[in-house]
């Protein structure tokens, strides 16, 4: 974490960072992190089909009266990301068929980690398809993973796949760009976190972006 680096190179985006990027485009009067991400790193980004499908599902989720505001923010973020990253999502990498043992092993590891965290959790590998496929392809293509989920990054490390949180991607933006201040980046990240979307790391001050 937090290596002094400006590079990202070839990477697979999980759903979390896409939600962050999507919501950043909805910033009111603030800095749009997605503009900087796109300029610096989008050319090296890829997504897997399961992530594209999860994003589409969240974007089309029907909100009911009484649903949490956070759910509304997620839907908004997913919709914005779906629109902004249309071509990236359309060229999503398909799930290999039949699923190789390696992929199933990753899915199993993610499911077990989730159960460890909340013992009552009965969700199966379906819930972790996006992360699992991203790690699988990243391992095969010597790419990295951008994910906000701790478990995904943990399994990625186990598979020797370098990973970064969304905050770490933004740190790289800060180091590469002279036209944006750390404070502005911090404000935009906090706007996303306040909306209930995981940015992958706890920040309390612009100083945490150093």
């Amino acid at each position: 974490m937090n290596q002094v680096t400006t590079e990202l190179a070839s990477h697979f985006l999980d759903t979390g960072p896409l939600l962050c990027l999507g919501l950043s485009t909805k910033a009111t009067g603030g800095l749009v992190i997605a503009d900087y991400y796109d300029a610096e790193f989008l050319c090296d980004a890829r997504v897997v089909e399961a992530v594209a499908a999860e994003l589409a599902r969240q974007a089309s989720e029907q909100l009911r009266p009484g649903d949490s505001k956070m759910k509304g923010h997620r839907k908004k973020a997913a919709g914005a990301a779906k629109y902004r990253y249309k071509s990236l999502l359309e060229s999503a990498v398909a799930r290999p068929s039949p699923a190789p043992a390696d992929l199933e092993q990753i899915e199993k590891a993610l499911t077990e980690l989730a159960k460890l965290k909340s013992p009552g959790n009965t969700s199966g590998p379906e819930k972790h398809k996006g992360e699992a496929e991203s790690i699988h392809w990243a391992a095969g293509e010597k790419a990295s993973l951008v994910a906000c989920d701790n478990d995904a990054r943990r399994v990625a490390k186990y598979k020797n796949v370098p990973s970064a949180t969304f905050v770490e991607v933004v740190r790289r933006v800060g180091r590469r760009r002279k036209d944006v201040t750390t404070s502005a980046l911090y404000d935009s990240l906090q706007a996303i976190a306040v909306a209930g979307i995981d940015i992958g790391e706890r920040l309390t001050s612009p100083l945490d972006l150093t």
Partner: protein
Amino acid sequence: MNTKRPFVLIIDDDAGQEAFALSLGQLGVEALHTLPDDIKAVDLARADLVLVDEFITDWNARETVKDQPGLFVRDGIALSGVLRAGLEGRGPSMEVRPSPSKAAIVLRTGHLDFLAAGTPTFMRPMAVAGRHDLEWVAEKQSTPAASFAALATAAASLPETWDPSAPTAQLQWLQLADTAWRDRALSQIEQCRPPWSALAATSAGRQWLAWFLQKILPFPTFLIDDLRAAAFLGLTQEGLQALMDGSSGIAQDLAACLYIGQLSEFAGRRWWRAGIASLRQEVLAEMNDGDSVDIASRLTKLHGADLAILAVSNPVFPIDGDYRTITEAVEIEDAVRLQPDGWPIFADTPWLAVSELKNEPELAKLVVLQDRLNFDSDESSDD
């Protein structure tokens, strides 16, 4: 090596301040109490810290000029301005070339609430000091003598040279050791915009001291208090203390993050943010990533006994109507960001719990625009 004891000049119309001077004398500084009429240029010139009382009612010589507003020094703040000119050797004409003095002037008053009426309690010393070109404003009754001794020592120890490209003396003043996280700490200091070039040089470092007292120590900046340091590690303050009191290797690593530079006890214990963040990072790396709860569990294991865990996954600390930090953490998505006057942009964001928006109408006015819109708007997607 300079063995001269820092000198404190106390200007107060209360004869009882002799005892205060004596108590300072027992804390490693030299102190002299004087009545306003008796201030001597030689004492002023050698002062490292000048403590000025605000309401000076017993001042006979002043009464003789009470019909001459240009001569009538109304209060301690006005006297501070006069003394500052004296310290710097300004005036009476341009023929006298002023020279900056690093002596700090601190208003010592029992009436801060009166002086800063309408200002939230937490911000009062910084607000009054900033407004009147004072290094600090201290409450007479509640500020321990040791704090004044520390101030005098800090002022006396200000570096002589001010070059941001070679801030060796400044980093010595802060006692920033040669640790693995030193560069990160240095970068964080820089982000806090220290006046360490022209402003510091032309004020003999006085601006640096004012910045440190008014913008750094009171707020979570490159130095953080126990509450924030503990939260970085997923612990409560009690948990942090227990970890600190232990004899594990992690306790030693933690001790290395303690701020021991000038004024280290002035506002309570402080930690290097970069040090604590690096410690957190190391623990995370050892356990192959995780969240605050995982870090706390890991620290508990390393400590060898239970530690009080914060149990808030993304903790932020709200402030109350007086801008004082509420020590109970809330989840970030249950809070909104505030933008109070005078709060440094580089400091930790102050927060208000969403549940308090209606109970704290004055704070609710300070919610940043983005968060206000988030919580006011219809949440349905517009895509």
